[in-house]
């Protein structure tokens, strides 16, 4: 057997909770240059962590994510104009305290990165970006906002970010904050007190397809560990477990959330990735818009589909998709067993003629053609809250 672990290099970057993860006995991997927990044997491993998030609550250290603040300088409106230029969603629609999913695009209409844009104030925005693209993103933002009246700050190292995810996340976090969490809608946030720390950002966001919160607290080791420990203590009654990047991936895949370098990249455009609803062509010009206009006229060459394996076998990232005749037609971008569904699922780019639900295609697994079916996505959608009983 070959060892599954990636060899560690001494120059790997560490979050403030790195020592704590190691003390917990987490299995660590190199994730985009970061030494991160992939799973915690003490939590019962990846599948147990995945189930905890779907069924109750789990906690992730996501401090490796980057944070860019953009504020107006000089006259008001500079920050908004800058964000509108570099981000494809319409930030003018954001109220203060609201966030949305978006992406920064190259002039070709392909992805620099996907981002969550938070509106902190009339003239202040916080962009949360991916860990592996931090330097590229910050340089991109600085370079492309030069002509706007704004100040760009890299706050990535200022925050420890914890994702508290699952149906009981709200109950857990409510014990640690004076903020009224039930009043925070999905993709809204407040600044409140968490674990006695004032002005912490508390956002109802996540990357698991489940209800949950992401909290941003000061990044010194003592504070970070104190918050982590208080979260775990408050979650004991809900059987909370620490969760690693392994289940973060299976959770986001079931919910068809894109991962940079897989479903989105500098080679894939917005239409191909089927992220149309986050791209506001009507808002005015922005980076990538012209190319997307052209691409729309030219038509799609490939599109992202969800597939489910029929034959025995697990489709993995970069495996080839082919048709009945054995011709290569596309590629798997993410594939894994789905712990929730008990099936082997994947996302793949294929020509539009193969994208209809019910289409049979094949994934080449170690030289074998394994049958798969195009299925509706997301693979998993969280149950709606039980409807409030109507008084008749």
């Amino acid at each position: 057997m070959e060892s599954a672990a990636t060899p560690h290099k001494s120059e790997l970057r560490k979050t403030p909770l790195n020592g704590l993860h190691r003390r917990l006995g987490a299995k660590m991997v190199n994730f985009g240059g970061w030494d991160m927990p992939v799973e915690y044997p003490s939590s019962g491993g990846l599948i147990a962590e995945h189930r905890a998030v779907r069924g109750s609550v789990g906690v992730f250290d996501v401090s490796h994510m980057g944070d860019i603040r953009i504020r107006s300088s000089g006259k008001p409106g500079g920050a908004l104009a800058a964000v509108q230029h570099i981000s494809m969603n319409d930030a003018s629609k954001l109220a203060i305290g609201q966030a949305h999913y978006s992406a920064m695009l190259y002039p070709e209409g392909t992805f620099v990165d996907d981002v969550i844009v938070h509106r902190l104030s009339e003239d202040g925005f916080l962009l949360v970006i991916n860990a592996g693209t931090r330097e590229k993103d910050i340089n991109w933002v600085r370079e492309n906002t030069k002509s706007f009246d704004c100040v760009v700050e890299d706050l990535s190292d200022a925050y420890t970010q914890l994702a508290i995810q699952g149906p009981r996340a709200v109950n857990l976090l409510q014990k640690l904050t004076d903020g009224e969490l039930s009043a925070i809608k999905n993709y809204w946030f407040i600044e409140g007190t968490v674990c006695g720390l004032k002005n912490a950002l508390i956002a109802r966001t996540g990357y698991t397809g489940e209800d949950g919160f992401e909290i941003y607290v000061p990044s010194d080791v003592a504070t970070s560990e104190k918050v982590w420990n208080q979260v775990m203590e408050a979650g004991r009654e809900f059987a909370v477990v620490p969760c690693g990047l392994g289940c973060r991936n299976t959770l986001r895949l079931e919910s068809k959330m894109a991962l940079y370098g897989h479903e989105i990249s500098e080679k894939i455009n917005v239409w191909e990735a089927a992220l149309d609803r986050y791209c506001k062509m009507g808002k005015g010009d922005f980076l990538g818009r012209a190319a997307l206009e052209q691409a729309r006229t030219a038509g799609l060459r490939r599109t992202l589909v969800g597939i489910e394996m029929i034959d025995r076998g697990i489709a993995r990232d970069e495996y080839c998709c082919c048709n009945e005749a054995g011709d290569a037609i596309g590629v798997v971008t993410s594939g894994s067993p789905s712990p929730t569904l008990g099936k082997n699922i994947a996302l793949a780019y294929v020509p539009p003629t193969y994208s209809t639900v019910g289409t049979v295609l094949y994934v080449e697994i170690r030289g074998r053609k394994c049958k798969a079916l195009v299925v509706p996505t997301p693979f998993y959608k969280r149950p709606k809250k039980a409807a409030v009983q109507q008084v008749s």
Partner: protein
Amino acid sequence: MAYPKNYRYTKEHEWINVEGGLATIGITDYAQHELGDVVFVELPKPGAKIELGKSFGTVESVKAVSEIYAPAAGEVIEANGELQNTPEKINTDPHGAAWLIKVRLTNATELSGLMDASAYEAYIAASGKEASA
């Protein structure tokens, strides 16, 4: 988990146990721990030939695929069919019920190059230190 004294071990974390003319092959507790939750196993059919140092099957966890290498050459007599439906047994009983294949060896002297339990324990202790350095 203890490493049985009568087994021999490879650097790629397979074990082999010879009883009479028949050898049983599996992966070690260290290997299953490195892999995490095992969800899929692919093994050769009876009659298939395996070659020393060559891959004869795969064990997959949620996040990784691992090739299994033959500790010695031989002919497959039996594959553990139970693992098709309960691959997770590899996580709970890797040295026992979750054996992978039984093989009639071509040349038993090939085993002389393998590690015994105490050498293997020293080997994984050293690689563990390296990984956390």
